[in-house]
C-alpha cells in the first residue's frame, strides 16, 4: 500500500503522517492557515481509536498535550503564530519536565494578528526556544509536502529519543498546497509498554514524578546542565541539510522551507541561462542549525546570500556560523511576500560585485 503516490494537502499530510507515526492524541484550536490539520484529526483520530479534542484555547491544547505525553502517548498539537505564542508556556514546561511531544507551526504573517499569508517570521521564536527558561526545541524545516510527511515521522522519533518537544516550522504555502506524496507505512508503535518514566499504574514500582519545579539549591542548575548535555548530543547527531550545486558555485544561497524551493529554482535557472553560478545550502534542521557545513563552505566561498521570508532572522544564524570568514548578504521578504527566482539571481549578482555585504528588503512606496 505504501509506495503509492497520492495528492495531498500539506496540512492533511502532517495529520496522516502523525497517525502513522503512532500519534494517538491531538488537541488543537482552529486558526488559519492550519485548520485542515485540526479538521483532519477530528475525522481520523476516532477511526484509529485515538483522542481528538478541540480545546478551548491554545493554552489548554498544549497543557492537554503535556498531560497526554506524561501518560506516555505520542501526542501532538498544531497552530499558527498567534496560537504558538500562547503555547510557549506549555512548551517551556514540557522541556523542563523532559516530555516528548510534536507540534507544527504553519506560520502566517506577524507580528500580532498580522495576516494569513505564508511567512517565516517565527524563526526566532522557534529556534531560540520561544518561552521562558534555558531550553531548546528541535526545529524541522520542510520544503515539500513529502518532507512534511517525512519530518513529521522523524519529529515523533526525535522527540521520544531526546524526551524533548520537536516541531515543524512550515508556512501557509506548505500547509495549503497539494503535491504528490508517498505515505510511509504506519510504524509499529505501541504505546502500551509505556515509556518507563511515564505516569500510570504505580503498582509494583516506585512512584513517578513529572515536574519542572526544582527549588532545592543547586538542583535546577544541575538539571539544566543535564539538558545542555542532551542538546549538545542533538547538535552532534541530528543536524540535517541538503546541498545543491554548491561545489562550483560563485555565490552560495542559504534558504529553508518555501524560500528554498524558489532558491533552488533560481540556481537551476541561472545555470541554464549560462548566468552566475549559484549553489544552495538548505537547512532541514533549523535547530540544530547546520553551522559546521556553512562555516566550512565559507572558508572557500567568498559570497553567501541568505534568502528568507522574514527580516533577517536566519541571517543571524548564518552570520554566527560564518563568523566573518565570508561576505554574507541578505534578501528578505516579510508579511507574506515571496522572493522570485529572478530577484534571487539579480541579488546574487549584486552581492558578488559589491565589496561589502548587501541587505535587500522589499521596496514599499
Amino acid at each position, binding site marked *: 500500500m505504501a509506495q503509492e503516490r497520492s*495528492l495531498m494537502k500539506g496540512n492533511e499530510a502532517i495529520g496522516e503522517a502523525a497517525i502513522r507515526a503512532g500519534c494517538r492524541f491531538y488537541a488543537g484550536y482552529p486558526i488559519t492557515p492550519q485548520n485542515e490539520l485540526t479538521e483532519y484529526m477530528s475525522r481520523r483520530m476516532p477511526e484509529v481509536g485515538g483522542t481528538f479534542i478541540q480545546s478551548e484555547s491554545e493554552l489548554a491544547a498544549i497543557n492537554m498535550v503535556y498531560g497526554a505525553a506524561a501518560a506516555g502517548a505520542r501526542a501532538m498539537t498544531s497552530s499558527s503564530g498567534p496560537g504558538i505564542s500562547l503555547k510557549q508556556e506549555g512548551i517551556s514546561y514540557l522541556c523542563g519536565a523532559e516530555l516528548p511531544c510534536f507540534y507544527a507551526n504553519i506560520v502566517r504573517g506577524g507580528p500580532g494578528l498580522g495576516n*494569513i499569508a505564508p511567512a517565516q517570521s517565527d524563526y526566532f521564536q522557534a529556534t531560540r526556544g520561544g518561552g521562558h527558561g534555558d531550553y531548546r526545541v528541535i526545529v524541522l524545516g520542510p520544503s515539500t509536502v513529502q518532507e512534511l510527511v517525512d519530518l513529521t515521522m522523524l519529529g515523533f522519533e526525535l522527540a521520544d529519543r531526546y524526551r524533548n518537544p520537536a516541531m515543524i516550522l512550515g508556512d*501557509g504555502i506548505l500547509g495549503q498546497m497539494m503535491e*504528490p506524496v508517498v505515505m510511509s507505512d504506519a510504524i509499529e508503535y505501541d504505546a502500551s509498554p509505556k515509556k518507563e518514566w511515564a505516569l500510570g499504574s504505580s503498582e509494583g514500582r516506585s512512584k513517578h514524578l513529572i515536574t519542572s519545579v526544582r527549588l532545592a539549591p543547586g538542583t535546577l542548575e544541575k538539571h539544566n546542565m543535564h539538558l545542555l548535555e542532551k542538546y549538545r548530543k542533538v547538535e552532534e547527531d541530528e543536524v540535517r541539510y541538503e546541498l545543491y550545486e554548491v561545489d562550483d558555485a560563485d555565490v552560495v544561497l542559504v534558504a529553508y522551507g518555501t524560500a528554498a524551493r*524558489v532558491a533552488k*529554482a533560481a540556481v*537551476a535557472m541561472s545555470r541554464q541561462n549560462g548566468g552566475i553560478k549559484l549553489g544552495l545550502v538548505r537547512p532541514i534542521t533549523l535547530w540544530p542549525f547546520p553551522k559546521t557545513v556553512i562555516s566550512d563552505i565559507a572558508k572557500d566561498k567568498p559570497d553567501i546570500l541568505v534568502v528568507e521570508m522574514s527580516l533577517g532572522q536566519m541571517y543571524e544564524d548564518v552570520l554566527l556560523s560564518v563568523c566573518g570568514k565570508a561576505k554574507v548578504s541578505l534578501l528578505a521578504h516579510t508579511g507574506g511576500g515571496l522572493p522570485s*527566482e529572478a530577484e534571487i539571481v539579480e541579488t546574487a549578482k549584486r552581492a558578488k560585485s559589491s565589496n561589502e555585504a548587501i541587505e535587500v528588503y522589499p521596496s514599499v512606496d
Partner: protein
Amino acid sequence: MTTKLIMAGFGGQGVVLMGTLLSYSAMVQGKHTTFFPSYGAEMRGGTANCSVIVSDEEIPSPVVSVPDCVVAMNIASLGKFEGRVREGGVIFINSSLVDKHVSRKDVEEVRVPANEIAEELGASRAANMVMLGAVIKKTRAVELQSAINSLEKVLSERAMAYLDVNKKALERGFNEIP
C-alpha cells in the same frame, strides 16, 4: 514544459475539483505538480480560485502570480484575473455565463459554453468538467485519458453517481476545441 493556471469562479462551480483533477492527472503521468487554493478570509463573498502548476521540472513556489492560462467560470473572475495572464497567454471564458470579452489584445480568448454543453448532457453541475476538457486540449498539460481515469479518485462519494456524465463532459469539452 511548464504550465501555470489560475482557475476561478463562484463557490459551487467546482473550481477546486477542476484544479484537483488536473493536478491529479499530472501526478499520474509522473509529472511535477502543485495545487494551491485561495484560503481564509479571501473566500468571503462566495468566490473561489486555485492555482495549478504542471511541469516536467521541480516546481519552486505553487503560488501563481503570472499565469499562462486563466479559466474564468464567471464574470467576476474575468475581471479579477484578466490582467495577470502573461503576454501570449490564454483566457478561457465560460461563455454560458459571461457575455463580456477579453479586453486585452495580447492574449488569446477561448470561449466555451460550458453550462450549455453540460445541460445537454443532462448534468448542469458538470460545466467544470466541460471546461477542463477544453483546457486540457488547448494546453496539452496532461492527457485527456489521465483525467478520465483519475476522475474516480477525486470525486466525492456523493458525486460518484455522476462519474459517467463527468467523463462525457470532459470529452465534450475536449472536442469543443479544434
